[in-house]
C-alpha cells in the first residue's frame, strides 16, 4: 500500500488554507510595520490591515468590529474573559457557573479563580452531552456573575442549547460567556442574537494560522468590561496589551471571510461524508455507538465507541495512514479516559474504546472510503485479539466477572 496520510483531526487544528497564507505573506517583510506606530506609513499600513481583518472577523459573527479583541488564541481569550470578569465584577458577586465538559482552558481558569475566592459550580451534563436547563437555573444564586458554556464540544461536537441559556441569563441579569472555538467558522454563530456577552474563538480551527484568536466583548446594553490580565501598552481598548500579530491577524480576517462564503457548502459536503463514515462503520461492524447528541451536533464531527476494543491499540492499526484522536489517554500514567465522555455517563470501558473523527475542508470522499476500510480491518484485528470480545460473544456477562483492578 502506498504511503498515504489522511488528516481527520481537524478539531485539534486545521491546515491553514493556502488562500489565507497568500494574504499573510506580504505582512512579514514588505508591510512589516507595527500597527501601533502612528507616525509613519509602515504603521498606518499595518493599522489599516488590522482594521480590515477586524471587520472581516466581526462580519463572520455579526458583531461590531469594536467588539473584537485580538488575542493569541482561544486559551488566552478564555482566561481573559473568566479572570477579567471575575476581577471587574467582584463587587457584584463571586459565583460562576460552568460545565464539566468544558475545555481545560475554562476549567483550569475556574480552578485558579477558586483559589482567589470564587465559588464555581460545575454542572453535570445529560447522557447526550447537553446541559439540563432546569439544573442550570437551579444553580443560579444572588451572587452569580457569570455563566460560561461552550458552544460546541471539541470531543463530541455536541451543541449546547445556547439560545435558551441566553434567555436564562437575560432573565436573571447574569453575564453569559461562551467558548465557541469549535463552532465559529463552521456553523452560523451570532452571539448578539442569543444574548452572549463574551465569546472566545481562534483562527487555527477555521483554516487560519495558529497564534491568533479573539474575544468578543459586548459593548452596548450591557457595556461589558474585563480587567486586563497583562500590563503594557494598552492595546485593544486597554483589555489586551501587546504588539498586534499583524500577519496572523490578516490571515484570521481572510479565514473568516472564506468561512462566511463557504460555510454552507462545507457543511453540506462534510455532513454527508460524516454520515457516510458513521453509517458504513455501523453497518459493517457490530457494537458501534455514537457518543453525544445525534441531532444537535457539528456537521463534521463524530465520536464513536467500538465496544471491547481499546482505542489506543486500535489507532496503532492505522495511524501510519490516518491521523485522528482517541478518547483514552493511555499515554498518561493514570490511564484516564476522556473526562468529557465520563461526564456523559459513559462507562470507562466504552470511553476507552472511543475515537474522534473530525473532518475538514480538505477531506475528500476517497479519504473517507479509505478510512472506513482501515477502521473495519483494525476493529476486527483488535477484536480477534480481545479476550473480553470473546467472552462477550460467548454470552458471559462482563459485569459479573471479578476483575483484578490494578
Amino acid at each position: 500500500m502506498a504511503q498515504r496520510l489522511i488528516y481527520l483531526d481537524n478539531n485539534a487544528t486545521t491546515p491553514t488554507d493556502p488562500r489565507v497564507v497568500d494574504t499573510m505573506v506580504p505582512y512579514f517583510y514588505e508591510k512589516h510595520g507595527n500597527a501601533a506606530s502612528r507616525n509613519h506609513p509602515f504603521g498606518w499600513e499595518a493599522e489599516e490591515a488590522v482594521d480590515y481583518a477586524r471587520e472581516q472577523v466581526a462580519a463572520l459573527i455579526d458583531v461590531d468590529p469594536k467588539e473584537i479583541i485580538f488575542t493569541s488564541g482561544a486559551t488566552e481569550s478564555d482566561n481573559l474573559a473568566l479572570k477579567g470578569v471575575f476581577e471587574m465584577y467582584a463587587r457584584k458577586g463571586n459565583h460562576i457557573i460552568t460545565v464539566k465538559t468544558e475545555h481545560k482552558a475554562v476549567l483550569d481558569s475556574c480552578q485558579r479563580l477558586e483559589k482567589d475566592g470564587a465559588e464555581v459550580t460545575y454542572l453535570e451534563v445529560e447522557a447526550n452531552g447537553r446541559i439540563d436547563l432546569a439544573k442550570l437555573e437551579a444553580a443560579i444564586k444572588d451572587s452569580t456573575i457569570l455563566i460560561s458554556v461552550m458552544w460546541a464540544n471539541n470531543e463530541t461536537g455536541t451543541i449546547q442549547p445556547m439560545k435558551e441559556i441566553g434567555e436564562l441569563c437575560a432573565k436573571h441579569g447574569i453575564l453569559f460567556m461562551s467558548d465557541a472555538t469549535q463552532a465559529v467558522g463552521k456553523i452560523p454563530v451570532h452571539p448578539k442574537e442569543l444574548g452572549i456577552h463574551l465569546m472566545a474563538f481562534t483562527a487555527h480551527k477555521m483554516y487560519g494560522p495558529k497564534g491568533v484568536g479573539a474575544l468578543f466583548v459586548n459593548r452596548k446594553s450591557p457595556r461589558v468590561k474585563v480587567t486586563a490580565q497583562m500590563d503594557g501598552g494598552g492595546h485593544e481598548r486597554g483589555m489586551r496589551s501587546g504588539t498586534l500579530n499583524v500577519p496572523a491577524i490578516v490571515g484570521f480576517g481572510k479565514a473568516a471571510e472564506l468561512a462566511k462564503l463557504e460555510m454552507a457548502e462545507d457543511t453540506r459536503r462534510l455532513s454527508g461524508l460524516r454520515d457516510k463514515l458513521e453509517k458504513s462503520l455501523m453497518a459493517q461492524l457490530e457494537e458501534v455507538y455514537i457518543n453525544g447528541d445525534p441531532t444537535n451536533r457539528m456537521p463534521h464531527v463524530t465520536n464513536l465507541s467500538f465496544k471491547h476494543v481499546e482505542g489506543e491499540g486500535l489507532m496503532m492499526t492505522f495511524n501510519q495512514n490516518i491521523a485522528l484522536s482517541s478518547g483514552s489517554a493511555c499515554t498518561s500514567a493514570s490511564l484516564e479516559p476522556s473526562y468529557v465522555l465520563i461526564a456523559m455517563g459513559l462507562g470507562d470501558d466504552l470511553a476507552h474504546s472511543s475515537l474522534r473523527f473530525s473532518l475538514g475542508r480538505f477531506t475528500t470522499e476517497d479519504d473517507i472510503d479509505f478510512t472506513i476500510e482501515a477502521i473495519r480491518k483494525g476493529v476486527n484485528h483488535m477484536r480477534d485479539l480481545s479476550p473480553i470480545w470473546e467472552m462477550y460473544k460467548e454470552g458471559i456477562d462482563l459485569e459479573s466477572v471479578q476483575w483484578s483492578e490494578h
Partner: protein
Amino acid sequence: MAYSEKVLEHFKNPKNVGTLDKSKKNVGTGLVGAPECGDVMRLQIEVDEETHMIKDAKFKTFGCGSAIASSSLATEWLKGKSIDEAMTIDNMDIVEELALPPVKIHCSVLAEDAIKSAITDYRKKNGIGVPEKQEKASV
C-alpha cells in the same frame, strides 16, 4: 508516541493468539486487568503433567500496543520452560526486550501477573504446592 520496532512487530504479527480449553486439567488460565482500566490480559499455558514443562501458551489481550506486545512476548518465552522457571520471568525483562517507555511499564507488570496467575491456576488444579518463595509482582 513512537513505538519500538519490536513492539510494532509483535503488534502487527502477534504470536500465539488464541484460546486453550480451560476445562482441561493441564491448562492453567490467568485473567488479569479490568476493562475499566483499559487493559485485560488472558494468558493460558498447557503443561506436560509428567515433567511440568510448558508445551503451549496462548493469549488474548484487550489493550494498547505495548500490552499486546508484552503478552505476545510472554507466550513465546513460556513455551519450553518448566513452571518453576516460568515463575522467574520478571516484568523488567519484558521492559528491556521491548524497550518500553516508563508510561508503559504497567503493561509488563500485567504480563508478569498473567504468567503467575496462569501457573497458580495450573498448580491449584493439580494440587501442586506453592514453593516457599512466591513473589508478588509490584503494581
